[in-house]
């Protein structure tokens, strides 16, 4: 019987230790830098930076987000959606020279990072439509 109690205590220790501390992966994130950048980034050459940011804001609003903050100098927009779960996104719009604009989005849902390519692809599909509308002067 003592043996079972010892095993149970060991199991409890293992479980308690498993997620209790701030693991390095929680601070620096998982996955490789390059792979994450690839799925989170698209490049456009149709609109300038302010107009691209306008399209990004419209996209986020279409997707039900409220804008927490936006900064045109640094090209960042952070937005939150509260619906069943909390989703937070930061989108950066950076000029790449030669009229090319790079748009990078990263998202978290509750305490999890969104890492699947399909979800980011969905975002860029909506952004493509907003970019098209903005380019054609549709409000």
């Amino acid at each position, binding site marked *: 019987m003592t043996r079972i109690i010892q095993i149970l205590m060991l199991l409890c220790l293992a479980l308690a230790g*498993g997620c209790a501390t701030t693991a390095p992966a929680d601070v620096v994130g998982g996955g490789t830098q390059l792979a994450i950048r690839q799925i989170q980034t698209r490049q456009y050459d149709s609109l300038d930076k302010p107009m691209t940011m306008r399209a990004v*804001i419209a996209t986020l*609003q279409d997707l039900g987000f*409220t*804008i927490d903050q936006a900064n045109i100098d640094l090209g960042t927009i952070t937005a939150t959606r509260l*619906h069943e779960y909390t989703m937070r996104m930061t989108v950066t719009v950076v000029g790449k020279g030669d009229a090319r604009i790079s748009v990078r989005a990263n*998202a978290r849902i509750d305490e999890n990072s969104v890492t699947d390519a399909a979800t980011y692809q969905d975002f860029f599909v*909506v952004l493509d439509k907003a970019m098209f509308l903005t380019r054609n002067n549709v*409000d």
Partner: protein
Amino acid sequence: MSTRLSTLTCCSTNWLPLLAVVLLNGCATTRIPEDALRLPESTLEVRAIQTRTFSAPSENAILAAAIATLQDMEYNIDRIEKPLGVITASKVTDADSASQKTGLFILDMLCVMAMSGGCDSMSKAKDEQHITITMVVLPSLARSDVFVTRITIQGVLYDKAARILLLERINDADTYQQIFDNLGKAIYIQVSEND
């Protein structure tokens, strides 16, 4: 008994799959919803509810009117990014009513008198609501001297124990209409004062 104990040693292979399942379960991540960033079918309808166009003499005039409208509705302005026309504001409101508090207090009292456990109805009562509103005011791309205003609102409802009761996007058309009515009046006042 000794036979049964011997099968429950830590090195028994029967334990390993169970242990693995328990440990994996402890740190399991939540599945990301597949449609997290897909447009819902109601997008156009919601966009129409959230968007209006206003005539105003300048971008400064309509932004000032928008800020004044938010202040009229008792919001605090959190951030403004003028070149993008983004205004973010928020407020915390009391979400419970006196009758709800009284009802739950009586329920807890009856629960204590009946000596049954878990008498914490009061802690489950609504306490406060955090409301965030974003106004995006930009010159229309289609028409000059007209500004497109789009508003999005969402709220978090907390109970007395600071637990989240509800996360919601506010899509009620009347609420948005009332805000746009207020903004229309604020623009009128803004223009009249500067004439």
